[in-house]
Every structure is written in C-alpha cells, then in structure tokens.
C-alpha cells in the first residue's frame, strides 16, 4: 500500500530524514516511536507532501512520485488524495461546525452535492460517536471530541491510508481512551494506518509493526513484542527506559 524508498529531507543544514525506506502493506497498522526531533512528524508530513522531500520516492496505492525530479502540483494532489491526516492539535476549522468541518472536503474538493455530503458526513460523525454534537463549533467540544471530528473529517474523504501524528498527546489523560477506541475500531475494520504515538499500550496491542526512529533514520523495526520488549539496539533500549 505504501512504498517509500530512500526518502531524504533537510531543513537548511539540518538533515532530518536520511535515506528512509519502508513498506506498509494493505491493512497494516504501523506505529512509529522515537525521541523528540527524530523526524517522525517530518516523515508523516512527507507522506502527505506537506513537506516536499529532497530525494527518494513515495508510492501510495497506485500513485507514485519521484522526488529526485521536479514535481508538479498535480503530483502532490495525486498523492494527497490517497491519505487522510490527523494532527496532534486538531486543526479543525473554527468557523465551521463539526458537521461542516466534515462536509467541507466533500463539497469543496470532491464536488459532491450538499445533501449527499451531509448524509456522508453524518454517518462518519456517527461512527466516531458524535451523532449528538454535529452542530456544535469546535470550541464547544472537548479535546477528545475535537480529535474525533478530525478523524471523521479525514475518513469522510475515503483515503487509502490514515496518518496519525500523536493524536492523543495533547489530551487530558481520561480523554485519551475515547480517541484510541475509535482508532482501534478503524484498525479492526482493516484500515491501513501509520501512527506516531507514545501510547505504548496501543502500540503493543494494536500495531502490526513498530518502527523506532532516531536522528532521521529507522533504527529498528519489527513486531511490537520484539521491538518493545526485546529491543536489539542500544538507542531503542535507552529510549524505552526513559518513557516507561
């Protein structure tokens, strides 16, 4: 489903991703962990082309883009439709209600008619357990509810892959579960997902694979039990001891 080859990205002199290659199969849930500044967010943003990589290639679904050559807006758009993104801070549109947030992409981008869009948006909000909050504005929702609207907004566009960047790390502890629950259900339905998170329980129980990144490279990857319980690399061990 995803095939990343030799991905490179620098900000000025700061090389953030050094030759990352990775594959995600259809239906896999890949969890990425790693210390702050290791490039996890940058990697996800490259998959979504919010950052343009300096080199390498990304294939998602049927769409492939080579970043060694000049890329066009069209290339970016092609790749972007394949993925849905959920941010650490929800980034909901504050001037739209929950429903309007979900409908926006359907109407403006996919040019669906309003009625159809509304029906679809309602069904996705229902799915994330917010059937009764559809007409509230983001500021009227709790952090967990906002994140769930963000998930519904991404899902409604029916992407092939969902990308999550620390979706629960800005939440109060008791709100974390309601978001993880939605993500768990998605995983069980067979959605392909790439998740950056510090929730070790989620990684252990839901992930099909865990990737540990540090300093812009993939240091170690494998089944959650292997990486999290019996890490091979020194750096992985050190990191895991710090956060547990």
């Amino acid at each position, binding site marked *: 489903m995803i095939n990343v080859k030799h991905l490179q990205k620098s900000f000025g002199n700061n090389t953030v991703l050094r030759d990352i290659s990775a594959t995600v199969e259809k239906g896999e849930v890949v969890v990425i962990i790693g210390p702050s500044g290791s490039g996890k967010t940058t990697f996800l943003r490259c998959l979504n082309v*919010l950052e343009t990589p300096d080199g390498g290639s990304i294939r998602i679904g049927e769409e492939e883009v080579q970043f060694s050559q000049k890329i066009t807006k069209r290339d970016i758009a092609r790749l972007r439709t394949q993925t849905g993104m959920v941010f650490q801070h929800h980034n909901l549109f504050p001037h739209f209600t929950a429903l309007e947030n979900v409908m926006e992409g359907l109407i403006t981008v996919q040019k669906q008619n309003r009625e159809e869009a509304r029906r679809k948006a309602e069904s996705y909000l229902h799915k994330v357990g917010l059937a009764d909050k559809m007409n509230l504005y983001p500021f009227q929702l709790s952090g967990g509810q906002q994140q769930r609207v963000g998930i519904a907004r991404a899902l409604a566009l029916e992407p092939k892959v969902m990308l999550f960047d620390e979706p629960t790390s800005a939440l109060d502890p008791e709100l974390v579960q309601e978001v993880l629950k939605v993500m768990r259900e998605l995983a069980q339905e067979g959605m392909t997902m790439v998740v950056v998170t510090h929730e070790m329980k989620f990684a252990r129980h839901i992930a099909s694979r865990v990737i540990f990144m540090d300093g812009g490279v993939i240091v170690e990857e494998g089944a959650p039990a292997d990486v999290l319980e019996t890490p091979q690399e020194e750096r992985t061990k050190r990191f895991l001891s710090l956060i547990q």
Partner: protein
Amino acid sequence: MYAVSNTVFTPEKLSLWVEISKASFMPMLEGALYHTIPLTLISFVFGLILATGTALARLSNSSLLRWIARGYVSIIRGTPLLVQLFIIFYGLPSVGVTIDPFPAAIIGFSLSVGAYASEIIRASILSIPKGQWEAAYTIGMTYRQALQRIILPQAGRVSVPPLSNTFISLVKDTSLASLILVTEMFRKAQEIASMNYEFLIVYSLAGLIYWIICFVLSIVQQRLEKRMERYVS
C-alpha cells in the same frame, strides 16, 4: 506659555451658537449624506479589494509581485494624501489622463485604503495558524480554495477592529476631496463659515457630525465583531 483673558461664555454667545448650528446643520448633513458617506463607502469597498490583492501579492512567491506591492504600499503610506489627490487630479492631465472629480476621489481614497488595509490584512492572514492551511491542504484543497474557504473568513474576523480604524480615518480624510472639487461635508462647513465668519462654531459643529458618524460606525463595528465571534469561545 498661556495667558488668561477675560472673554468668557455669555448667554448671547450661547444663543448665537444655537442659531448658527440650526442654520448650518442641514446643509452639512446634506454634504455628509450625498458626498462624504458615499465616497467613504465606495472607496472602502474598492480599497479592501485592492488591499486583499496587495496582501496576497506581498505573501506570494513571486518576488516581482512582492516588490510591486511593497513599492505601492511604501509610496502611498509615505506621502500625504493631499499630494496624492493633487497628482491624480492636477498632475495626470499633463500626461493625457483627465479624470472627473468623483471618480478621481474614489481612485485616490481607494489607493490609500488599499495600502493601509493591505498591511492589516497581511498581518491577519499571517496570524491564522499554519495548521489551518495544512488541514485545508490535507483534505485536498488548492491554495485558492484554502484561501477562500478557510483562511480569509478567519482573517476577516481578526481584521475587523484594525480595519475599523482605517475606516474611521477615511471618513475624516474625505474632507480633502474638496481640493478636487467634490463638495463634501467639510467644504460645506467652510462655505458656511466663510459667509458668517463663525469658523469656530461651524467647524466644531462639523467635528460633532464627524463624531456622530464615527460613533455610529463604531457601534456597527461592535455588532459585526460580535457576530463574527460566534464561533470562538
């Protein structure tokens, strides 16, 4: 530095004030309704359009566009409006462009609003968190769609208070239009005062009318702000 004289307010003086105010109120109000207010409103609308374009040019990737926008803003903000109107109305004819008073005034004031407001709009666009752009891009929007649907509506809300300052300044600046033959309110005041020689009274009255207009505007602004703030806590 200052001296105290014995001339103070007397009952006669007060009744003179009342009388003159009565006689000059209507003509001045007429000037306000037929010229000051339309001139202000039309220029403001055109100015805002120009300002939005300029703000986007200043934020664009093209360095040519950025430089044009910067130059325009710098020239307009750096020179007195009086001189600008003078050049538009009395200078352009010598290069073959003759514009009628009212359109010339509209052009002059719109250019002015365009420059001042562009800085405000630029700042408001920049004040919208980058995450809003990114969220718009991730759901597949183009730059244009993101701008129209997501960024400008939010930037609009942010810029209402500073724009209302520009607007209030504009109301008063329109008094310069008399220079290029538009009989706006302050011109009326001058006409009246030159006839009865009561400059202080008539000008104060004009000030009062300006103040009323601005006061009404500030109420409109507050309403507008409140309406636009319904979606923030």
